[in-house]
């Protein structure tokens, strides 16, 4: 590994961490699309800042761009407050217009300078190590590393300092207001941090990758845990993992680094989306199937409990009466039998003591509407699940 390669991976990882932290809160606050809007609408801020400073790395440019990000949020909220359109429409209206203004500004005024829309939107990490920061003639490393590094330190300090405020206002804005931390201040603080991070990262990795790095690790982490601290740690790990593996994918394919990092994030999310325990699609589908069988079982047991006459409890009759297909009735019957809830004598089905008790309790819970208790009760009674 050459020096430049290490530097690229270092920058990518730091960007990933700096994005994952605000991203986690954005996902939890259901504001993920705001990051997309910000990442587009910083363009006019960048363009205007560039006209003033003529330097893509100047701090003024970052401030102006972050300011236009905050303006986006304010505009979206203002439009939403008028009640003329819904929030999502407000987002969808504001950022394309601001982005268009940026594109037109570039087209009209900046034809011969190093600033084009592709660069802003897509970024090129491969060039990041060539832009060095020189302090009194001494090379101290790539500029973007310093910029994103200081943003990361700022973000981490703010998160540690205001962790409990962020946590409370994220999950219960009303409680946070009544405790005396203004949710509005926290909200705008978070928006400002997101804007600053987006701006700091765009030049290295591009606006779209910033969105991916904010949302995808947080969303993947959210499928694995419900603990805020753990979610933050997971998303940081996912971010770093995809940053480094993405770099090597790009190296191998000779393609865009930001594109490869996003692709790795996508694969990671796809994997977690499918296989996450409890919340992954496969687990959910399996649980749904299980619950369906168990509800059918309960219906079946209720039928048995309600009918004492032999005619109603004959296997053939049950098949007809409850109108299940053969296969399904066999599964249910097997399940009930395995769990010692029924007895079958001469093709007459009857409840065992255990089955009787289970059914009575289940009815109680259903009548009192304490649905949550049924799951615990199933654990007590079932030897085998559906």
């Amino acid at each position, binding site marked *: 590994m050459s020096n430049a390669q290490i530097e690229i991976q270092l920058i990518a990882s730091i960007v990933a961490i700096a994005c994952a932290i605000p991203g986690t809160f954005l996902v939890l606050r*259901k504001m*993920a699309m705001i990051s997309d809007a910000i990442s587009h609408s910083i363009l006019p801020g960048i363009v205007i800042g560039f006209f003033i400073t003529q330097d893509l790395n100047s701090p003024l440019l970052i401030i102006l761009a972050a300011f236009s990000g905050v303006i986006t949020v304010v505009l979206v909220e203002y439009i939403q407050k008028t009640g003329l*359109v*819904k929030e999502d429409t407000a987002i969808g209206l504001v950022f394309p217009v601001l982005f*268009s203004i940026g594109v037109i500004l570039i087209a009209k005024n900046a034809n011969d300078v190093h600033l084009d829309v592709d660069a802003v939107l897509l970024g090129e990490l491969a060039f990041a190590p060539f832009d060095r920061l020189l302090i009194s003639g001494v090379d101290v490393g790539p500029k973007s590393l310093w910029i994103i590094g200081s943003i990361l330190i700022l973000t981490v300090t703010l998160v540690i300092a205001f962790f409990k405020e962020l946590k409370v206002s994220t999950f219960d804005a009303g409680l946070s207001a009544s405790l005396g931390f203004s949710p509005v201040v926290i909200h705008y603080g978070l928006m400002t941090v997101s804007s600053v991070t987006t701006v700091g990262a765009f030049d290295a990795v591009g606006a*779209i990758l910033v969105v991916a790095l904010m949302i995808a690790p*947080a969303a993947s982490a959210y499928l694995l845990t419900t603990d805020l601290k753990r979610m933050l740690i997971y998303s940081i790990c996912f971010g770093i993992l995809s940053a480094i593996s993405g770099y090597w994918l790009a190296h191998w394919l000779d393609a865009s680094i930001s*594109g490869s990092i996003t692709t790795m994030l996508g694969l990671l*999310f796809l994997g977690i989306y499918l296989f996450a325990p409890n919340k992954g699609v496969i687990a959910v589908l399996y649980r749904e199937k299980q619950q369906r069988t168990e509800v059918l079982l309960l219906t079946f047991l209720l039928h048995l409990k309600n009918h004492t006459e032999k005619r109603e409890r004959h296997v053939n009759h049950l098949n007809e009466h409850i109108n299940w297909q053969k296969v399904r009735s066999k599964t249910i019957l097997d399940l009930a039998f395995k769990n010692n809830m029924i007895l079958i004598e001469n093709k007459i089905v009857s409840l065992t003591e255990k089955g009787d008790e289970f059914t009575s309790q289940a009815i109680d819970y259903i009548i009192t509407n304490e649905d949550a208790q049924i799951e615990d009760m199933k654990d007590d009674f079932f030897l085998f699940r559906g």
Partner: protein
Amino acid sequence: MDITEYIQLVFTDYTLRTITLGTAVLGAVTGMLGSFAVLRKQSLLGDAISHAALPGIAIAFLITGAKDSNVLLLGALVSGLIGTFWIRGIIKKTHLKSDTALGLILSLFFGFGMLLLTFIQKQPNANQAGLDKYLFGQAATLVESDVLLMTIVTSVCLFVLLLFWKEFKILLFDADYTQTLGFNTKFIDILITSFIVLAIVLGLQTVGVVLMSAMLLAPAAAARQWTNSLSMMVFLAALFGAFSGVVGTAISASQNNLSTGPVIVIVAGVFVLFSFVFSPSRGLLFKQIRFIKNRRDLELHKTLAFMFHIAETHDDVSHPHTIKILNNFQGYTKSTLQKLVDKKYVTLDGSNWSLTSEGFKTASNLYNQQMQNNE
């Protein structure tokens, strides 16, 4: 270039005519379908789909190796649909919310598309140049066959829209009721979503991935302010969309260095702004005017009530009082006093005022009336 000259040019110049026609048709179809997206609270779906279409374009190119725009659009359609259904899957099967799902699909698909595009650029194939026009769109590359395709798709959309009008309408406003009536809601839902995807994909070549969502939303959001009827809204949105297409093309054609996509979006944005401010029933301006008018009325009532309480203490209702005693009262202004005179509740005599018997009667019933109205 003045306007008449430009209009003449639109009819004579092949390129300009094609582009104007293309953007107009595109604006109409996106406006039409955008109305449904806005009302179904799926506004950002357009943004997600347009980004999700990018890998489809790249893959279609990788497979066929040809730059035929119809094949590429087919690829875009397929990957847009995959993106849409994945979004639905995420929302339905996990506890992730719709905004997260949209942002995820948008950025992940787009990033993957970028990976493929840069990969294609490194291939030894001279044909690949120009794929990136789908990023920001280039209306200038529209040819007659593209416009023809757009027109056909628009007609099909219109036909299906009219055919399933009542189904679309009822699903829009009450999905549960639709299901109880026995309609196949899933089918209608997929139908309308697929058409939205189709419209977005059509627009990619003209306005590009990034700005497509605004084409979908802006005309519909503007139209929404002027009417409460769905058919009127769809019609107006189509009109606004077509108009922003034509005006945007005209502005960008008459200036150097202005790409059509962003200009069309800004024109549509101006439409939205205008509608937000000046719409008679919902607009901010008239709302403010109504607000001020209501406040004036209340102040008038307050003044009248104040006068009434003074007049009450005298045997003669019309006993004159000086205007000065009204001065330390909030609701009093010269114009409100004049209004009361106009309504014949009060008569003025120099610096004195006196309540008429009619004014006294109205004032004594003022609060009773309001209570009666509330009941």
